[in-house]
């Protein structure tokens, strides 16, 4: 038996045939655990026939603060670029979903935890502006630990920049569907991820402003079970729905048809 044909589910610990997971949209066939998707897997899953054109690919990060912790930020960027084969933590792409021309910005957690620095902010903003210019619905799939510390306040300002762009999308009366995947926290949640006409999440995704550890240390109490998970947010009125991955595309297409008044 070849080792790499098999994998262990992070949740139920069962040993599973990799092919079975992939055929099941990277969801564990035994327990329903949603494995994290890369940006390209996400785009391939959402666009019709898995076909799309990547845009804004040339926007690349710099190390404006010359930030050094245990490693140079520049080195970290290079490593992430090598590992993911991506220039940054978000990919913008244009294509059709259910025959409707849309732009999707999909974040990739493998690139420095999907954190938002100048480039992620710029690309999200460009995706919004392209939606306005070409009168397309916008879909953002968030998967991010928040603002990127290594770009300091420049990262923080991306919250303002992306949200301001979304205010213009709203004035243009175009739909924005925000999909929150595990995890979506910090500055990403406190900006574009929570500003959809509808905000939906995959099951059991960690979603919040502050990280659970920070909250625990602040209040010095144990956190309630299921705290900051999709189902918890739905119950507290912070999400429109929790949508399992296998229904995600269909859900988004249905929502767009309703928003655009375009029955099948």
């Amino acid at each position: 038996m070849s080792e790499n044909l098999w994998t262990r589910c992070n949740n139920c610990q069962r040993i599973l045939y990799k092919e079975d997971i992939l055929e099941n949209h990277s969801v564990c066939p035994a327990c329903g655990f949603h494995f994290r998707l890369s940006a390209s897997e996400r785009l391939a899953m959402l666009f019709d026939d898995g076909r799309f054109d990547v845009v804004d690919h040339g926007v690349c990060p710099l190390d404006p603060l010359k930030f050094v912790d245990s490693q140079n930020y520049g080195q970290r960027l290079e490593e992430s670029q090598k590992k993911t084969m991506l220039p940054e933590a978000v990919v913008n792409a244009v294509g059709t979903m259910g025959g409707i021309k849309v732009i999707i910005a999909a974040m990739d957690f493998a690139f420095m935890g999907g954190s938002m620095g100048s480039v992620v902010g710029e690309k999200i903003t460009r995706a919004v502006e392209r939606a306005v210019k070409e009168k397309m619905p916008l879909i953002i799939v968030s998967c991010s630990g928040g603002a990127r510390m290594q770009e300091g306040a420049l990262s923080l300002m991306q919250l303002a920049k992306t949200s301001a762009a979304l205010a213009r999308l709203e004035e243009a009366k175009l739909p924005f569907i925000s999909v929150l995947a595990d995890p979506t926290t910090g500055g990403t949640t406190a900006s574009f991820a929570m500003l959809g006409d509808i905000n939906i999440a995959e099951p059991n995704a960690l979603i919040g402003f502050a990280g659970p550890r920070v909250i625990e240390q602040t209040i010095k109490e144990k956190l309630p079970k299921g705290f900051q998970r999709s189902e918890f947010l739905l119950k507290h009125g912070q999400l429109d729905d929790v949508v399992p991955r296998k229904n995600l595309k269909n859900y988004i297409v249905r929502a767009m048809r309703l928003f655009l008044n375009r029955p099948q």
Partner: protein
Amino acid sequence: MNVSEDFYQLEKPIVLLKEQINALDLNEEPGKKEKIAALRLDIEREWAKIYPNLTPTQIVQIARHPKRPYSLDYINNLMRDFMEIHGDRRFADDPAVVTGFAFYKGESVAVIGQQKGRTTRERIERNFGQMNPEGYRKALRLVKMAEKFGFPVISLIDTPGAYPGIGAEERGQAEAIAYNLKVFSILRVPIVVVIIGEGGSGGALGIGVGDSVTMLENSFYSVISPEGCAAILWKDQNSVAQAAENMKIRAQDLFALGIIDKIIPEPAGGAHIDPEQTFKNVDKVLSQTLKKLEQKPKEELLEERYQKFRKMGIYVEK
């Protein structure tokens, strides 16, 4: 942190000089004016020795100084007839932020100020200036009223960050901040933001989108607190100084990065040594900025506000 790095140790000579001034101020005696002037000069001399070598960590200590003027001090000294309004009409009133209307230079303004407490009891009541979602929604209610009546908004920032609590998450802390960012960006009246102390991350930015963003010289503005950054990237609290250094949180750094428009000078020793002078310095910038913004046609104001934030970020196009 060792003693020599501690700002509270460094400032001792200045505090002693200031105490002498205060004592002189209490009673009339011959040569009082000259004596005070001489002591002020001494403060300036002491400050000139300390100031150029201050580290970002020490700036953070000044920004968090328990005697530093807080939002209500500015409001009460610079404005008249301040009328506080309370509550978000949805859940509660948030004492970590004061909102209301006042006359400034004879004109109605809407004012928002993150508020810390002075005594232990007040500090707890004000939640150390850490807002909950209802605070952001109270501020939102205020700015929508300002838009309705055509008043400019003055927003004073001084917070370690938005409150990380269970209730805050349940009630949508992230959404409350995000929604403010969106609404402030297209609000059809001028917004003037002044960072007077701590500019703590999204918690600060949630009332911090405006046409003009200025900063007191010894305040700081940061994506995460130096302590938070040290805990995540260095995994220890001995690296707080390094984190503060690396993140470029000081006014002059942020000015160079195009994040703030102006630095408001502080008197020798910092704002807390001479609050009266600090109020004057803030007053000057505030009134000049408002005058300029109020003359702008609305569409121009809004386009410039959009472009101001649109341009923020440093990257390369390949």
